[in-house]
């Protein structure tokens, strides 16, 4: 069934977009990430202009992370204090990111910067996650006990001032690294047009040592708020949010996310990390190949933003 998108200015197959939304939603529900790094390239591949894709995906991620956040809230798997501190940094980071985005655009080569940061970020994070998951599996096979928290090895993070107690996560931590993490995620998200959940979750687990029980739910709150802000900014400044496209993606996405979340609960943690690492690595490598291999067509056309 074909449907004409009012902002993207082209007809799309509703079932194709629904299926794409559901597939990405499944992945996002399974791993507790937004899935923007998968959705945006998929939409561009389907023929939607990159600007419209990035802007509309923001609202799609907001919807799926809200439905996720509600169910995590019911299971008391969200740490409100931690989410609030993260958000303070996240909001600042988003604003900074939008500003950098405009600066990069005026200098030209924004596309290259985005492609390069996708490659660097995705291959690094994906590679680390894959390697860590693999090691955990090997350890489990050998029967070595898995040490989640190394006793006594507090490190420099715990020497920082302004410590507060995050009750639900049962950690006692300085607010400084939490704000910095929020800032970084907000910044990366605004520049690259992604939610950043796939970076946030490992950072929270390995750097801040937040227990796995509250990690996904809390990260969803951060994703939800930054993506809502991104939707507003994109709609107010670029007029590129396609509400019809977003609605189709949302309906597919939230449905897929529910099934994904159920599937995710049946898989063991280290296997989940291994799978997610592989997936991220694959997307990163795909971007790298695109940069290295001679493109089919050396020329591209892009309509210059109509300024009215």
């Amino acid at each position, binding site marked *: 069934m074909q449907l*004409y998108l*009012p902002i993207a200015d082209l007809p799309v197959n509703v079932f194709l977009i629904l299926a794409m939304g559901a597939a990405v939603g499944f992945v996002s529900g399974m791993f507790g990430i937004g899935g923007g790094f998968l959705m945006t390239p998929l939409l561009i591949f389907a023929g939607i202009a990159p600007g419209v894709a990035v802007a509309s995906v923001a609202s799609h991620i*907001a*919807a*799926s992370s809200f*439905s996720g956040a509600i169910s995590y809230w019911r299971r008391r798997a969200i740490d409100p204090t931690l989410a609030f501190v993260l958000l303070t940094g996240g909001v600042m980071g988003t604003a900074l990111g939008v500003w950098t985005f405009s600066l990069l655009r005026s200098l030209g080569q924004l596309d290259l910067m985005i492609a390069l940061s996708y490659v660097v970020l995705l291959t690094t994070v994906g590679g680390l996650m894959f390697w860590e998951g693999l090691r955990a599996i090997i350890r489990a096979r050998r029967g070595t006990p898995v040490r989640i928290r190394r006793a006594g090895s507090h490190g420099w993070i715990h020497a920082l001032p302004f410590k507060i107690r995050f009750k639900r996560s049962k950690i006692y931590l300085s607010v400084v690294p939490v704000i910095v993490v929020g800032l970084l995620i907000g910044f990366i998200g605004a520049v690259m047009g992604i939610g950043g959940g796939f970076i946030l979750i490992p950072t929270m687990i390995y750097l801040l040592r937040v227990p796995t029980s509250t990690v996904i739910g809390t990260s969803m709150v951060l994703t939800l708020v930054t993506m809502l802000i991104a939707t507003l900014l994109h709609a107010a400044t670029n*007029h590129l949010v396609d509400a019809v496209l*977003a609605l189709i993606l949302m309906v597919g996405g939230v449905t897929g*996310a529910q099934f994904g979340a159920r599937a995710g609960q049946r898989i063991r943690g280290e296997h989940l990390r291994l799978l997610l690492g592989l997936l991220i690595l694959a997307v990163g490598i795909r971007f790298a190949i695109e940069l290295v291999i001679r493109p089919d067509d050396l020329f591209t056309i*892009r309509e210059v933003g109509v300024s009215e």
Partner: protein
Amino acid sequence: MRRLGLCLSVTTCLLASAIGLPSARAERLIVSVSNQRVTVTPNYSGEELVLFGSVEKDAETPPDRASYDLVVTISGPPADMVTRRKERKFGIWINTDYREFIQVPDYLAVFSNRPLEAIASPEIARRQQLGLDNVRLTQRLGSDYADVVPNDAFRRAFVRLRAEGGLYREDMSAVSFLTPTLFRTGIPLPAEVATGTYHVDIQLFAGGALITHTETAFEIVKVGFEQFVATTARQNGLTYGLATAFMALMTGWMASIVFRRD
């Protein structure tokens, strides 16, 4: 309503061609497009219009004039576009060089009844901008504005890429004469065409010379829901954003209720 519009514009065309070409011309062109106002609705997926016309002879028409040639040029709303070329630098393919095309038509179609070379000499073809190779596509390079030779790499790539999307097309047999003076041609519009006014220029040739020409136009407009969404997004960006954000929250909330298990 649509029929009234059609009648009106046909009359306007008649008037325009009658006033615009007072005398000395022996032929007149009378044309009409099957639909003057193409509306974009949710199930819009492209359309094909039909252009009908007739060559009206009068007393001054030389009696030995046996056959006519027609070139129909349809150009869509103008837009600025950038064509970029990738080059290998430091082992990766990056955009290096680019050309800006200023106010070039979003859609461009050239239809004729036989090959352009047979209709007019290269000079006339160039002067009348006949065919994709001769249509003026202004490029900007720094502060210079110019149209370059047809075999310029950027221009060629631009026309080729537009043609791949069906937005630029050239068909040397699209115009068919039903009688020696009555002609028709289809105007295929792919779904990706921009909304706006489309100008149709019809040029009549005989014996290699331009005898007369006439113009008509049609428009592609968004109506109803499509138009509402597009204008709201443009004029009330923040409200639109808030509505979209609210929609996102509602969808998420609905899903959590529908799929609630506990």
